[in-house]
């Protein structure tokens, strides 16, 4: 048993932290949140060149071939920024879907350019009639020779508006799992993308209007990708959790610092037990998310059945990030809601990412479904 990080992992974390201090510190991020795209070229370049985008992609496809735990260390550090950009959407999620569902040829075609940051890909699964999971996929293409024709909408697609390629989940049969995955070039005629405003981060709406896609662009077989997609989600979800745990760590550290700096009634506010209570609850949520995640990562890295562990980690990461932000806001009071302060960078994410890859009720339900598999 050894619950510490390895030397390599500590070094990697340091690299991310140094980058953040220089090119993605809080002041820069506060500026960036006002820009349409939400992230900078510096961020994307560093994430690509330093290998964070492609780190979970195997080396033979141009990636870093990192294990789950090591990847999580980097994404936790990014989440602590919180560093914005399509690193997770493209390098981790889309990368995993292609890796699990694609042919050897497709892997060679897409993965190296995803890893290098030359292209951005993202998974387009959810739809206006929202429901997480394959059952919610209702976009049914028509067929025209060796082409599919798409008409319809994908909604809440993270980073869709900056993507070069979309992995579009389509309905190709009536069974619950009868879905297929189609690589769609966003430059194809009839594809349009719009970033969604609101309490959102990088959610977008993708509209398909008579979009013609060669059937050769299918990832895997028609109606035969469910297992591969499940695997990809199982592998990508904990990395998203790590990003969220990092965010929780960020708002925790801000709260601790503020408890020391802010003086009211002649004392630092951290001496008031009401304030202490907020931070105690915050760190309990944070550590619950952190340690369930750590165990799930270890299970993945050692080839054990990690399904329940990942559902547990995602449940607590979503609930925990949200609660961590709420408690940090209670500590910061008015100061925390000023956009110039930086706390709301996290708050926005805690809401936006709450349901990404399934909300806590979805993941609790999966645990309930898997009760008998728990040893």
């Amino acid at each position, binding site marked *: 048993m050894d619950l510490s990080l390895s030397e390599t992992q500590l070094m990697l974390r340091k690299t991310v932290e140094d980058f953040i201090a220089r090119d993605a510190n809080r002041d820069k991020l506060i500026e960036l949140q006002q820009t349409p795209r939400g992230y900078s070229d510096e961020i994307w370049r560093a994430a690509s060149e330093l290998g964070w985008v492609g780190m979970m992609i195997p080396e033979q496809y141009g990636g870093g071939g990192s294990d789950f735990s090591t990847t999580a260390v980097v994404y936790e550090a990014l989440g602590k920024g919180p560093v914005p950009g399509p690193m997770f959407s493209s390098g981790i999620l889309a990368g995993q879907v292609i890796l699990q569902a694609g042919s050897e040829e497709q892997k060679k075609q897409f993965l190296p350019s995803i890893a290098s940051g030359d292209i951005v890909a993202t998974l387009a699964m959810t739809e206006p009639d929202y429901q997480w999971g394959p059952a919610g996929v209702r976009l049914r293409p028509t067929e025209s020779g060796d082409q599919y024709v798409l008409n319809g909408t994908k909604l809440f697609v993270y980073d869709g508006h900056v993507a070069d390629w979309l992995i579009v989940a389509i309905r190709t049969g009536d069974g619950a799992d009868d879905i297929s995955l189609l690589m769609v070039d966003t430059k194809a005629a009839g594809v349009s993308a719009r970033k969604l405003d*609101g309490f959102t981060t990088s959610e977008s709406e993708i509209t398909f209007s008579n979009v013609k896609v060669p059937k050769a662009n299918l990832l895997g077989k028609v109606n035969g990708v469910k297992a591969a997609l499940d695997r990809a989600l199982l592998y990508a979800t904990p990395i998203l959790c790590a990003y969220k745990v990092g965010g929780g760590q960020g708002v925790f550290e801000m709260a601790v610092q503020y408890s020391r700096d802010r003086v009211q009634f002649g004392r630092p506010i951290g001496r008031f037990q009401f304030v202490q209570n907020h931070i105690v609850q915050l760190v309990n949520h944070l550590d619950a998310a952190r340690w369930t995640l750590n165990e799930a990562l270890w299970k993945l890295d050692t080839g054990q059945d990690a399904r329940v562990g990942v559902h547990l980690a995602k449940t607590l990461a979503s609930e925990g990030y949200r609660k961590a932000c709420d408690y940090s806001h209670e500590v910061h009071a008015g100061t925390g809601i000023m956009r110039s302060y930086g706390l709301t960078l996290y708050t926005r994410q805690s809401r936006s990412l709450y349901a990404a890859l399934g909300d806590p009720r979805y993941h609790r339900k999966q645990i309930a479904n898997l009760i008998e598999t728990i040893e």
Partner: protein
Amino acid sequence: MDFKPTYTPEQEAFRKEVRSWLEAHVPNVEGDRDSDENYAKYRQLGRDLGARGWLRPTVSKDYGGGGLNFEQSVILYEEMDQYGLGLPPYYDSGGWLGGASILVWGTEEQKQRFLPPIFKGEVVTWQLLTAPEAGSDLAGTKTDAIRDGDDYVINGTKIYVGGSHKPDMLWTFTRTDPTGPRHKNTSWFMIPTDTPGVTIVPMDLLGDGGEGIGASVKNTVYFEDARVSAKNLVGGVNNGWQVATTHLELEHGGGGSIGRNKWFERAVQWSKTEKRNGRPLIEDAEARDRLADIFVLTEVSRLFGLRNYWMNRTHQKMSYEGSQSSYYRKLTGLDITTNLQELFGPASLINGGGFDFSEGTLDAYHRSAITALHPGGTADVQKVLMARRMGLGRDEAEAAGKTVE
């Protein structure tokens, strides 16, 4: 107990009068209720109501109120609520709160001078409480008002003030004896907005763009050698903290509210039109569970507000109830928005475009549930007040602040 007034025929007649008057006068607006155009319409409604004495129905006619009784005020609130409006029908909590303090603490001359314009809806007033250095610790303000001849000269900064449309008057409390003993060194002032040396600058906040009429923005107000007549000092020199107890009591929820259960009603309505897998959301068992959870949370808030409204208007002795209502609403706001997000999914976060079924109101609520934790006394401050009023660890429970209405 009786949760609804039993109305006499006379009162029912009054309701008819109110209803038809409102039908004729409540503006029909589209889009953002806080746009310049729409705000102006609500502002006019305030003036029209004020002219009839309906803006502050139970306040004496001598000061611009309606001189109406408790049941009549309930009728007015209920009928306004049918339009999703309160009294006043635009953002004037400054007038409501400051007016109460003047009623309790002002001289007769000050009441005559300040109150009728406020209660008749002619003047809009902002309250200035929070300062960068003094948030929960209001009495720690470093805004100073120093006597100079017949005037006081004010310097300092207040934050989280007002809304998106400039008011006519401001009120604040300031140190008039900066080195004097705490709670005995402040005084309370009414200040015309156009006083030289007063500057208003909008802030950039998470909660910007909420639903409140006139309330989608908050401001920083700077005082730089702003001169105010000593006649505008209300409640006596260095007695500002006492004057503040009145409006703080009301702001902390002691005034109560009459209203329907807005978020639950909206959620049910949207659940009938929003669909999942081709079926209305309301037919889904999980969705109904969420609606039930929202109902439970919102009903308690509604009843706490109603209880306080009755206690306040019928002069019951109040204890912790004001802050309880405020605290409960603040904290459950976070739970309600979580339930709403789980119920409606990510679409509940979107603002604008075809899939924004709530027309941005849910986005605004998600954000305002967070920002609402702090104004009018943070959630923690409400707990401090409740503890004092219950007399926890004390021989005697602290009495509630004196209010009039």
